[in-house]
C-alpha cells in the first residue's frame, strides 16, 4: 500500500501478508456483508486536533506566566487555575481523543466488523466533548478536587464514568460480534486500558459532596496520597502508555507494510505492563510520610518495568527492518520513529527516577516536568501526528494536501521538543542542586528560595520558545487537515466488506500430538491461545492481575495501624481554617507549593522539622503537592506575622522583589461565604473528622466569625487595613498560620491571630 502517491493498481497486489489468507472480495454464499463506520473516526480526529491546540496554547500561557507574572491578570486566568486545565486538556482531550480515533478505526478492521452501535459511538463522542467543555469552564472558575489529573469535581466525574461505560459497552460489543477469532495484540492493550482506567477513576474520585461543585476525598493524608499516586501513575500507564502502544502495534505495521517485528515480544510486553505497572505508583512519594515498605516496593517494580518497556520500543523500531529507506520519504514513519524512541527514553528515565537516591534530587523539580514532556510531546504527540497523517488520505479519500508541510511539521516539532526538554532538564537539575548546596560553614548556600527560582529564568524562556515551535507545528498540522478535508469527494465511498461469520464452536487447530499431563498442557500454549480467543476470559485475567496488585498495596496502608502512627497533638482544622484551606485549593496553591518536608538536612534547615504521617490524618484531600515552584509550606504556621501574609497575598512583589507568585488582591475584597462553612464541617464530620460541637446547626459559622474577628484585630494592630473580618483573606491567614503547628507545639494554638514569632 502506498502512502501518498502510489500508482493505481498496485494496491490489491500488495495487501495481505504472505502466508495469510487474502480476504475474499467476491460475494459467495455464507459471507456476511458489512461496512466500517469511519464517520466516528473523522469526528474524533478533528476533536483531537482542536483540543490539542487549545491544551498546548494553555501550556504556553502558563509557561509564560512563570517568567512574566503580570500575565496572571485575572483570578480565572492565574497559573494555579490554568495549570490543571493544561494537563487535563492535553491528557484527556488531546491524547484521549487520539486514542479513540485510532481505536475506532483499528478495532473495526481487526475484528472485521462495524462497531457494535453507531448510536453509542455518537454518545461517546459528544459525551466526551461535553465533559471537556465542562472541564474548561469549571477549572478556571476554581472548582477542583486538588488531586492531579483528577481535579474535576464530582458531577463531572460521574459523567466521565457514564461515558466511559458507554465506550466500554460499544467496544466489548464489537469484540463479541467480531469475525476474526484471534484478538490482535493492539486489542489487548485497548482492553487493559479501558478496564484499568475505569477502576482507577472510580476509586480515586470517591468523595463526599459539600455542594454542587465542592467535595472532600473520602481518604485522608497518607492514604489519600497513596490512592492519588496509585491513580496518577497508572493514569500515565493506562491512559498515555497502553492505549498508544495499542496504536503503535496497529499503525506501525500498517505504515511500514510489514508485520510487527516479534509478536512474541509484544505478548511479553503486554503481560509485563499489566502485571508490573500497577505496583509502581508509590515511587511518586519517596521520602514522604508514606511507609517505607510501600516506597521500596514501588521502586523495585518500577525498575522491573524498564526491560519490558525497552522490549516494546525495540519491537516497534525493528518493525522497520528492511524498510528504513522508507523513513526518508515518509513523514508518517518519521513521526513513528521519534515517538517510539521517545517512549524508550521516557521509560528508561522513569525507572531511573524511581530509584530513591535519584528521586531525592529530582522530586519537586522541573526534572519531572521534563520527563513528562519527553513522554507527552514525543511519544503521545508524535504517535498521534503520525497516525493522523496516515489516516487523512483514507478518511477523506483523497491525497494528503501537502507531504512537504507534514515534513516541515516533523522537523519543527522535533526541534521544539529538543529545546523544551534540554532547557527544562537543565532547570530541574540546577534547582535540585541549589536546594541541597551547603557552604563551607555548613549553612545553606542559597537560603533564599527565590534565588533558586530566578536562576531558572533563561531556561524557562527557552522552554516557552521550544513549546512555541511545537505549537507552530500544530498549526501546520491543522492547515494540512483542513486542506485535505476540502479535497474530499462529494460523497464518501463506503466499501462493502465481506467476511465469513465466526463458527459457533471453536477448536484450536491441532499442533502436533495432543498434550498429556499438566506440564505438556502448559507447554502447549493452548491456554494462552484460548485466552486470546475469548475476550471475556481475557478481560477477567487483566482485571485479576490489576486488582491483586492494587489490593496488595492499598489494603495494608488502610488497615494496618502502624502505617500511620497518630500524633495526639494533631487536631482538626477550625471551621475558619477549613474555609481558608478551601480557598487555598480553589486558587490552586498546591500546584506550586508542597506541604511535605522530606527527612533531609537540606530540607529541615530550609523549611523546618520534617513531615510525619500522623500530621495529615484530617487532610481531606492531602495537599502534599508535586512541584516546588515556590517554597514548601508544611511548617508555614507562625513563621511570619498575619500582616505579612495579607501584604504577600495582595502583592507578592512588595515582600519579595523577584517573586513570580500571582497576586491575589481579590482575597482582601471578596466576602467570605460564612454560611457555606457549616456544610463543609458537616461533610468533614461525615468522613470521621471529630468536629464535636461545631456540627450543631449554625454553630460552625459562629466559631468562624469569632476567630475571624480576632485575626482581623491582629492585622489591624500590626498596622494593616482594618475591617477584614468578613473577607476571604482572614480564612487564608488562619489556615496558613495553622500549617504544621500541631505536631511541633505541645498544644493547639489559641483560636486567634499570631504576632511575630
Amino acid at each position: 500500500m502506498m502512502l501518498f502517491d502510489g500508482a493505481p493498481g498496485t494496491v490489491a497486489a500488495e495487501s495481505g501478508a504472505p502466508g495469510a489468507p487474502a480476504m475474499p472480495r467476491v460475494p459467495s454464499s455464507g459471507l456476511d456483508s458489512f461496512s466500517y463506520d469511519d464517520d466516528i473516526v473523522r469526528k474524533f480526529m478533528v476533536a483531537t486536533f482542536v483540543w490539542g491546540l487549545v491544551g498546548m496554547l494553555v501550556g504556553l500561557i502558563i509557561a509564560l506566566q512563570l517568567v512574566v507574572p503580570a500575565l496572571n491578570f485575572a483570578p480565572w486566568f492565574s497559573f494555579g487555575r490554568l495549570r490543571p486545565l493544561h494537563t487535563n486538556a492535553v491528557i484527556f482531550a488531546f491524547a484521549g481523543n487520539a486514542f479513540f480515533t485510532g481505536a475506532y478505526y483499528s478495532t473495526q478492521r481487526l475484528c472485521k466488523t462495524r462497531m457494535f452501535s453507531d448510536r453509542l459511538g455518537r454518545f461517546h463522542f459528544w459525551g466526551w466533548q461535553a465533559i471537556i467543555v465542562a472541564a474548561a469552564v469549571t477549572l478556571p472558575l476554581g472548582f477542583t478536587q486538588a488531586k492531579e489529573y483528577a481535579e474535576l469535581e464530582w458531577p463531572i466525574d460521574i459523567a466521565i464514568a457514564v461515558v466511559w461505560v458507554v465506550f466500554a459497552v460499544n467496544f466489548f460489543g464489537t469484540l463479541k460480534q467480531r469475525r476474526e477469532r484471534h484478538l490482535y495484540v493492539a486489542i489487548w492493550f485497548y482492553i487493559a486500558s479501558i478496564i484499568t482506567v475505569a477502576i482507577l477513576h472510580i476509586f480515586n474520585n470517591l468523595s463526599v459532596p459539600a455542594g454542587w461543585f465542592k467535595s472532600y476525598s473520602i481518604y485522608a493524608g497518607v492514604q489519600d496520597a497513596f490512592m492519588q499516586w496509585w491513580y496518577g501513575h497508572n493514569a500515565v500507564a493506562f491512559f498515555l502508555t497502553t492505549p498508544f502502544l495499542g496504536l503503535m502495534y496497529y499503525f506501525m505495521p500498517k505504515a511500514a507494510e510489514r508485520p510487527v517485528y516479534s509478536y512474541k515480544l509484544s505478548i511479553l510486553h503486554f503481560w509485563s505492563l499489566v502485571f508490573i505497572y500497577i505496583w509502581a505508583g508509590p515511587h511518586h512519594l519517596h521520602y514522604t510520610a508514606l511507609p517505607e515498605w510501600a516506597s521500596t516496593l514501588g521502586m523495585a517494580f518500577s525498575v522491573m518495568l524498564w526491560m519490558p518497556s525497552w522490549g516494546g520500543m525495540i519491537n516497534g523500531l525493528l518493525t522497520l527492518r528492511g524498510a528504513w529507506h522508507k523513513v526518508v520519504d515518509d513523514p508518517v514513519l518519521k513521526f513513528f520513529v521519534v515517538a517510539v524512541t521517545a517512549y524508550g527514553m521516557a521509560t528508561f528515565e522513569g525507572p531511573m527516577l524511581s530509584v530513591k537516591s535519584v528521586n531525592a534530587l529530582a522530586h519537586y523539580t522541573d526534572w519531572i516536568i521534563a520527563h513528562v514532556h519527553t513522554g507527552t510531546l514525543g511519544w503521545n504527540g508524535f504517535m498521534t501526528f503520525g497516525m493522523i497523517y496516515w489516516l487523512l488520505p483514507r478518511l477523506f479519500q483523497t491525497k494528503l494536501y501537502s507531504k512537504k508541510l507534514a515534513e516541515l511539521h516533523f522537523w519543527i516539532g522535533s526541534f521544539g521538543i529538543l529545546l523544551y526538554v534540554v532547557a527544562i532538564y537543565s532547570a530541574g537539575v540546577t534547582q535540585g542542586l541549589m536546594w541541597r548546596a551547603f557552604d563551607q560553614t555548613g549553612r545553606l548556600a542559597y537560603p533564599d528560595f527565590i534565588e533558586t527560582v530566578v536562576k531558572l529564568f533563561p531556561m524557562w524562556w527557552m522552554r516557552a520558545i521550544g513549546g512555541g515551535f511545537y505549537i507552530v507545528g500544530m498549526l501546520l498540522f491543522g492547515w494540512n487537515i483542513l486542506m485535505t478535508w476540502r479535497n474530499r469527494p462529494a460523497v464518501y465511498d463506503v466499501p462493502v466488506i465481506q467476511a465469513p461469520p465466526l463458527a459457533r464452536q471453536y477448536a484450536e487447530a491441532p499442533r502436533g500430538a495432543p498434550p498429556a499431563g499438566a506440564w505438556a498442557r502448559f507447554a502447549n500454549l493452548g491456554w494462552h491461545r484460548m485466552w486470546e480467543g475469548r475476550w471475556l476470559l481475557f478481560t477477567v485475567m487483566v482485571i485479576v492481575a490489576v486488582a491483586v496488585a492494587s489490593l496488595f498495596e492499598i489494603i495494608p496502608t488502610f488497615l494496618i495501624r502502624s502505617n500511620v502512627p497518630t500524633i495526639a497533638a494533631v487536631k482538626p482544622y477550625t471551621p475558619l481554617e477549613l474555609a481558608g484551606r478551601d480557598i487555598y485549593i480553589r486558587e490552586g496553591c498546591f500546584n506550586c507549593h508542597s506541604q511535605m518536608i522530606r527527612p533531609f538536612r537540606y530540607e529541615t534547615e530550609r523549611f523546618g522539622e520534617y513531615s510525619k504521617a500522623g500530621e495529615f490524618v484530617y487532610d481531606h484531600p492531602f495537599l502534599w503537592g508535586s512541584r516546588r515552584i515556590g517554597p514548601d509550606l508544611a511548617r508555614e504556621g507562625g513563621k511570619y506575622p498575619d500582616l505579612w501574609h495579607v501584604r504577600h497575598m495582595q502583592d507578592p512583589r512588595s515582600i519579595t522583589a523577584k517573586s513570580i507568585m500571582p497576586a491575589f488582591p481579590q482575597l482582601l475584597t471578596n466576602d467570605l461565604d460564612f454560611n457555606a462553612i457549616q456544610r463543609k464541617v458537616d461533610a468533614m464530620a461525615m468522613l470521621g473528622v471529630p468536629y464535636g460541637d461545631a456540627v450543631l446547626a449554625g454553630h460552625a459559622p459562629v466559631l468562624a466569625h469569632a476567630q475571624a474577628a480576632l485575626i482581623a484585630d491582629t492585622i489591624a494592630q500590626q498596622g494593616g487595613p482594618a475591617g477584614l473580618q468578613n473577607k476571604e483573606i482572614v480564612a487564608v491567614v488562619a489556615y496558613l498560620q495553622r500549617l504544621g503547628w500541631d505536631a511541633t507545639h505541645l498544644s493547639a494554638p489559641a483560636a486567634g491571630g499570631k504576632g511575630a514569632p
Partner: protein
Amino acid sequence: MKSLSDVVSGAGLHIYAEVALVIFFAVFIAIVLRVLIAKRSTWEHEANLPLEDDDAPPHPSPDQGTRHADQ
C-alpha cells in the same frame, strides 16, 4: 473503620500478603518463560492481522471531478 483496622492490625495476616505476592509473581514469571521459549510461527496468523484488510487511500480517477470545495 476504627474497629476493623484494630482487628486487622492484630490478626497477623502479613503471611497471606507475602504468599499472595509470591503466587502473583510466579504466575507472571510462568507466562513470561513460556512465551519466551515459544516458536515464532505460533503467532504468524495474528501478527499479520493488521495487514489483512486493504485500505490503501483511493486515488482520484479522471471521472471523479466533483469536489466539495468546488461547489
